[in-house]
């Protein structure tokens, strides 16, 4: 199925948390500021319902997304109020991919963990947590995965301040 088909199926089965979809489009010729958007389409999902949404994606026969390929986050800009959580799903049986985006408030970035649905997200969520400061509620093992346990700050945020020194080693 192409993206349209997947989106229609999601709406037909009433997938929980589905907010909308965003597809690439040409810019508006009348509006010079609007240059459009290139690349891949994605669906927008409410982050608090993400786990249930993923469960439906995995279990529905026509969708059948057996594998969670990637779960990550993006900080689009310093002045934007939201973080994105990006999920990439893969269906081996139907040979299709799905890109999911959730918008999280930067002030309180919390959402339930998706580990009950895919074990793959366990380490991906750990990385998101340490890099962006997102809390995945109910995560079985919320330790840092790449950074040291005592690292201060969330490096991949746009407003991240590099530390001056770490354990006596200068970071200038």
């Amino acid at each position, binding site marked *: 199925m192409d993206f349209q088909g997947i989106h229609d199926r999601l709406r037909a089965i009433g997938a929980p948390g589905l907010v909308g979809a965003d597809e690439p489009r040409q810019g508006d010729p009348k509006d010079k500021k609007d240059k*459009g958007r290139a690349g891949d389409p994605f669906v927008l999902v409410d982050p608090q319902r993400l786990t249930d949404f993923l469960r439906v994606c995995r279990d529905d026969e026509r969708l059948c997304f057996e594998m969670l*390929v*990637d779960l990550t986050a993006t900080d*689009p800009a310093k002045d934007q109020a939201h973080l994105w959580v*990006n999920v990439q799903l893969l269906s081996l049986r139907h*040979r299709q991919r799905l890109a999911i985006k959730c918008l999280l408030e930067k002030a309180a970035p919390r959402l339930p963990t998706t580990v009950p649905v895919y*074990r*793959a997200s366990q380490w991906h969520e750990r990385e998101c947590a340490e890099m962006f400061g997102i809390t995945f509620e109910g995560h079985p093992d919320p330790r840092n995965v*790449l950074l*040291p346990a005592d690292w201060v700050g969330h490096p991949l945020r746009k407003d991240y301040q590099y530390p001056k020194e770490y354990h006596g080693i200068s970071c200038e």
Partner: protein
Amino acid sequence: MSDTHTASGLGGDARVLRSGEREFTLDVRTQDMEINFGPQHPATHGVMRILIRADGELVTGAQPHLGYLHRCAEKIGESVEWLQYLPYTDRYDYLAAMNNNLGYSMAVEAVMGIAIPRRAELIRIICAELNRIGSHLIAVGTYGMDIGAFTPFLYMFREREWMMALFEKICGARLTYSYIRIGGLFNDAPPGWFEEVALFCDTFEAKWPEYYDLLIVNKIFVKRTANVGVIPGRVCLDFGLTGPILRGSGVDWDLRRDMPYSLYGEIWRDGAFQVPVARGEMGTVGDCWDRTWVRMREMQESIRIVRWCLAHIEEGPVMAEIPKILKVPKGEAYVGIENPRGELGHYVVSDGEKMAVRVRVRGPSFCNVAVLEDVLPGALVADAVAIIGSTDIVMGETDR
């Protein structure tokens, strides 16, 4: 990182004996040993630390600790220009650098929506497949060394030297190439290069049975790897494992055939290559032997793909028309390609500027390491080495 060491009283009971009027109390407490596998260790394929809890030789718990090779590649992606990021892509999976370049370039090209000249596509595939051979040679060679067979490692490096010499001729570098660029290639192949590649293919194909007989079907090697570290197919899907691990567990999935990119769709339709999927020939499907077998067979298939490309090579430009200072239009894309270790995914987000908003690298080894927590318990310490080796992880890709 967890730094607590707890002494678990495994089998700790107080047994009470009666002897006449007196009671004796024997307090027998045994203790699981907690050992550090790494970060400096000959068999962990890079800097990784696995905290292993072992009851004698039996592993009862394993906890991988990463981050020793974390070089902030994703953060750097946001502060350098699109083309300047290419050398950083070489350095995550340094054993298959061409594939990394390809993945990143394809992701950016997907956002830009440009077409690549055919000659560039063909040479890209040749380089990616030759690099796949080189990467698998190291994977199987060092795996043999982990098991104790020192000699096949050196034989395989002999072929790898040749591959690196070929790459040196085409782009000047032996390990980190930055050759496959956004829009095409850095430069065209020098005259005589394709003939040398054909010669390499013929020679390597003749040497392959030598490695197979010396290492893969050696009775001792089979005893060490068959029925060891079995990962069932559904566990692979649940953990997001891809590549030889997935195919070694019997799941028939290869991105080059099932979600084709570049010219792989055409090559598949021409019947030029097959996808080796393990059937549990020497033991249970999904054991270490199967994964190694898949890697050996993939080398043969790569030779066939390279031969197809050599037969269809045509003249033309090797770079599309793109501006020198690249400004990628606003948008985002995810492109996953078949790395020697699994699905290498690049998710790039652009704001229309000279630099990316986000470059996310989905390294297959990062996902592959996660399964060790579940597979290692229940194996012996010597098996732990065999299992870690069979997942073929490269720490550059795991930590980025």
